[in-house]
């Protein structure tokens, strides 16, 4: 049992990474990746939401009628997002403002629905919780990688602290939207190289 828990955990982080392999859930959070602090908060929020909504959906899975399950799943997810939103507003008002609508958009993040449908529907609450959390971590790691490149080259800083010398000319493109697409494309390219060679 311990093995399968560990396998569940690591599968989502690398072999089955939601962003690289399944291309899910890029929607809501890419826009906040021009800054590491915001990305980190977003990632933590996402891990919280996926973990607990998977847990809840798995615990209730025998009582949810099949034909309205999508609606109920969305409601469960929305509940956790509201909790997250209220907590952020209370303790981190600045970041909550910067994230703007993107906190609310976690609801429609396909990863959460995807994990609920593909995993929580057919597994126990504990395993589903681990699965949800690891999917969230796998997703956050990619976002942090994107944010690292964008903040470093776009502002010359990391987590708001200057790391590159004053003479460094910031790359304006890294602050704008297209760079995120290019970086994700490059990450997918790098990550898929070992898999393709095996064939």
């Amino acid at each position, binding site marked *: 049992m311990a093995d399968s828990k560990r396998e569940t955990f690591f599968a989502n982080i690398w072999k089955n990474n939601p962003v690289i392999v399944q291309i899910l859930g*890029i929607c809501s959070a890419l826009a906040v990746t021009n800054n590491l602090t915001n990305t980190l908060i977003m990632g933590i929020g996402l891990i919280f939401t996926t973990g607990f909504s998977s847990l809840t959906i798995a615990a209730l899975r025998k009582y949810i009628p099949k034909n309205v399950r999508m609606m109920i799943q969305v409601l469960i997810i929305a509940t956790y997002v509201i909790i997250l939103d209220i907590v952020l507003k209370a303790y981190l008002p600045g970041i909550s403002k910067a994230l703007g609508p993107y906190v609310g958009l976690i609801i429609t993040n396909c990863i959460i629905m995807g994990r609920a449908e593909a995993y929580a529907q057919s597994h126990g609450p504990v395993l589903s919780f681990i699965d949800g959390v690891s999917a969230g971590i796998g997703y956050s790691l990619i976002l942090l990688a994107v944010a690292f490149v964008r903040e470093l080259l776009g502002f010359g800083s990391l987590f708001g602290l200057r790391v590159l010398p004053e003479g460094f000319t910031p790359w304006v493109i890294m602050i704008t939207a297209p760079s995120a697409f290019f970086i994700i494309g490059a990450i997918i390219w790098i990550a898929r190289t070992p898999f393709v060679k095996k064939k």
Partner: protein
Amino acid sequence: MGVPLNPFVIMVAAALTSNMVLSNFLGMCSFISVSKDIKTANGLGMAVTFVLTLTSVLNYLVYYYILVPLELVYLRYIVFIIVIAAFVQFLEMVIDRFSPALYINLGIFLPLITVNCAILGGVLFMIIREYSLIQSLFFGFGSGIGWWLAIVALAAMRMRMREKDIPPQLVGPGITMIIIGIMALAFLGFSGMVPVQ
């Protein structure tokens, strides 16, 4: 309440300068998975535009006439998503009843739309930017048009990419992301055309 902006300006801005998918990253999931074929892309684009326009108005009314007076603003995410889901369901039944031909073209996309981030995103932007009713209508419509334009353009490019010789690691999502990046760069050229962000 409200920004004194010409609704038409908001519409153009939503469609071009701050395009839903290319500069706000909204609706990416279906943008990538449904853009393999131009005909389906067109159908989905049409459905998104329609739903986005009407749900913007609907959610505007629900927000300002029900949630705000009752001080239930903190429930807005749940309420918005219910309104969207209920509207999509209702629309599906209406289309099925009155226009079977349209249902065949549009029907399969409707369930997909409920979880399309562009719809909820459009609604949340409308609330955060405090648009008036007319502005919301034009904003929703413009955002939909922008999304439609982007997905049809992407589908057309992906169809041409099919016969091209691409590095095997990049086939599929990798090259798609890079194409989207180049498209986003092109759309960046529109910025400055309209004096709103």
